[in-house]
Structures are given as C-alpha cells and as structure tokens.
C-alpha cells in the first residue's frame, strides 16, 4: 500500500484515500496556443521508469491537491510538496541526487 504524506493537512494517507492526478508541472495551455502545445499539455507524457513528479488529491481527506516525487519502479516516495509550486523544492532535488545518482535532473 502506497503511503503519502499530505502537505496540506499533514496526514499520512493510504493510497485508497488518495486520487492520482498524473504528471505534475505540465505547462497549462489556453486559447491561442498552437496545436503542438495543446497536444503536449493534454496528452504527451514523460512516463519515466524511475523518478516521477506527479499530482495527487487527498480525495477522502482534506480534499486538497498536492505534488509528490516518487519512483515508478520501486514505489519509493522521495517527498511531497504543495501544489502551488513551479518546480520541486531544493530539499527533494538534493535527496533525489543522493539516492538516484543517475537521475537526469529536473528539466
């Protein structure tokens, strides 16, 4: 069972309490964007085998969205952080570099 700490309410939540929201930090396109940009926003995904930044919603808890860094192969969670951020916090990036030396880094 996957356990994630909700940074909004502080609860350690089981995956049954959470709803996955897919890849995080996508650039949200709007009216006037080119087809390629919309395609990238709506459909194109990194889908990595390894470190993945993703959105979660504490659906059966506080109801808030948050973000997480997780390994898609081992399911190791490197940390969670508020959704109101443009990129992963430095602490998570540093932890990742230590634990996954071959990680290509934050794009």
């Amino acid at each position, binding site marked *: *069972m996957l356990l994630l700490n909700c940074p909004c309410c502080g609860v350690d939540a089981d*995956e049954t309490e959470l*709803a996955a929201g*897919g890849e995080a930090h996508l650039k949200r396109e709007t009216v006037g964007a080119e087809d390629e940009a919309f395609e990238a926003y709506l459909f*194109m995904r990194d889908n990595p*085998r390894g470190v993945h930044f993703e959105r979660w919603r504490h659906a059966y808890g506080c109801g808030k969205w948050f973000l997480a860094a997780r390994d*898609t*192969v081992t399911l190791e969670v490197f940390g969670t952080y508020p959704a109101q951020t443009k990129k992963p916090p430095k602490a998570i990036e540093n932890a990742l570099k230590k634990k996954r030396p071959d990680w290509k880094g934050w794009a």
Partner: protein
Amino acid sequence: MKRYSAFAIAREAARYHTGWERAWRSPEPKTHYDVIIIGAGGHGLATAYYLGKNHGIRNVAIIEKGWLGGGNTGRNTTIIRSNYLQDPSAAIYEKSRSLYETLSQDLNYNIMFSPRGLIMLAQTHHEVRGYQRTAYANALQGVKTEFISPARVKQLVPIMDISGPRYPVLGGLYQARGGTARHDAVAWGYARACSDMGMDVLQKTEVTAVRSEGGTVTGVETSRGIIGCKKLSIVVAGHSGHVAEMAGFRLPIESVALQALVSEPIKPCMDVVVMANTVHGYMSQSDKGEMVIGGGTDGYNNYTQRGSFHHIEETVRALIETFPMISRLKMLRQWGGIVDITGDRSPILSKTPLGNCFINAGWGTGGFKAIPGSGWAMAELVAKGEPGPLAAAFGLDRFREGRFIDESVAAGVAH
C-alpha cells in the same frame, strides 16, 4: 522445421521422443538486419511473422530483453473479442479475431483457440443502451454480436446470480465466436514460424540506445553489441515511453499495472467468458479448471508488475456478488503486467518523428486479442512505410488533430 502432426507424435512415441527438435533457434546476432523489432511479445512476433509471410521480408531480428512472451503476452487473461463500437477498432479487432480462427493451422502450432462465446454484462440502464448501440454498430461492421436478455444470460451462465442487489443483470452483449486461446502458445507458435523463415529471435538482449543519422534510424545498441538495421519497429507495450525516449520522442502514453489472478482449479462450471465492466471484473474458466479473473488498473503510473492489493479486493468483491459460488474459492496466484494507456485508450500503430522508425503501442488492457491483427497491420506499415487501411486511423498525429478513437467512453473501462 519438422511439422507437428498426429503422425509425428506416433513416430516419436515409437522412438522414445528422441527426435523432437528445438522449436526455435537461439542464434548470435548478425551485424545488420533489414528490420529490427524491439520486443518479442505477441505483437512483435506477429509483426515479424506477417513481414515474412505477407511481404517477403525475412532478414529480421526480434530483440527481447527478457524471455519470449514474458511480459503482458504471458500475463493477460487471454480474452478474444471484437465487439467494439468505433469502426476502426472493430475492423482491426475483427481482423485479429478472424485470424485467430485458423492460427493453429497457419502456424502448425496448437494455440488452443476456444471460441466459447463471450458476454459483456449490462448491469445499468446506461449499459443496456450502450450495448444495444454497439450491437447495431457491429451489425453494420459485419461483426456478429447480439444483445441478449437476462434469461438468456442465465441460460448460458447458470452459476450467475442475475438478480444481485446492487447491479442486477439487465442483459448482455453476446459474441458467440469470442473466447480465449493459450497465450504462451501464441508467442511460441509465432516464434517457431519466424525462426523457420530464417528470422533471429534474440532473447536476453536488452536495447540500451537507438542509433540514428540525419533523422533516420541506423540501428540499436544492445547488451550484445551494436546491431544495424534499415527499419526499426518498437513493440514494447508498457515500456514504450522508455524506448521512445532512447529514440528521441515522447508519446501520449502512461504506464500502469494491471492485475489478474486465478483461483484453485475446480470442475467445469462456466463455458463462456463473462465481462462485467460496471464493477470492473471479468472471469473465465481455464482448461485446467482455474477461474481466471481480471480487474481494473492501478490509478497511478508504475512499473512494478505487481499492483495494489485493494484493486484485487474490489474486483473479487464485485465478482462474488455476481457469482456467489466463487466466494469459498482460494486464490492460487496473482500477478501484474505493465499496460500502456494512451490518451484516448486506443492503440497507436504509427510512423514516428524518427525516420524509418515505427511504433506499435498503447494496446493498454486489451492487447492479447489484437495480436494477429496488430501484427498484420504493423507488418504492412513497416514494409511499405505507410499505414494500410487497418492502421490508418491509429496514427500518432490523431492526438494533435483531435481525431480520437474514443472506445474508452464507448465501451466502458475493461478492454
């Protein structure tokens, strides 16, 4: 290749079975092939087979990082059907189903195709309307299905409780020539036929990089050295994103774990395949007597080939309501496979941004039934460089153009 036949069995019985030869060769890689296919699962092997059979291209290698058919080909619940709503889906899945009918004879390998019939249960009024619509669409597409009454469902599946408290059975979409086949045998049969045509099946050979020159593919780097090719076909299901990254492009695909389980073997009690899409469960009985059960996917990206336990619990809970007699059965085995889910839940058979590199992916939770048709269409795409009528609608460009094949909304969740 020595043919398998009743005579061969008699001959070998008379000499203590000393004359059987290996079903396929395990050669050393050559330095260059006309076509390299990454992934020796059902789809990759079928692509190779029809490249040789339909298009005369036999200088082909099929490269596999693990063992033959060890991914989703050997992990699915072996359901074969073609009762889809949208025309492009019905065309390719029905082509596939019809190829399954004679595949044992074509390959001279018993794939145990069992067209025992398949019912998709309608358990809400929405589903009744949806499946009636599908039945009419199938009639226009030339796919033989019918919408049947609850009484007929009960007649076909006596062990089913059709008056469940939450989701009573209100009817069903019945495809009499749907069914199952032996999944491993499909991979083995294709591999044997490919090997017989002179193709190289390279197991335990992992692709580590894709080589290109001036925007056109020139070969791959593998754990057994560099292998050149004129054309490259990526057929790696759940690992498509990983290989596409090597080839330098992104895909509209996310990979998740899909689980299945079997019960302990019991006496024959159900001779059709039953799918219940509202409650995410499907079940058939294997020739060994095990109840083969599949459910929904995990909700988040992962490559664990294991899956979350609560999904199995949800599936079993739902099926027990519909089949009360299975409530005392013990679970024998549970496993997971990594399925590649596209943005519109339909597959991709397409050219890619890299020249002479093609991709066959996104079959998601329903790839096994599509193996022969997918291989047929993919072989045409690789051989000619342009998609034929079966593959035309499944190009990567549909996501940019908004030209989706929306079976997810049309057919429910399970494929």
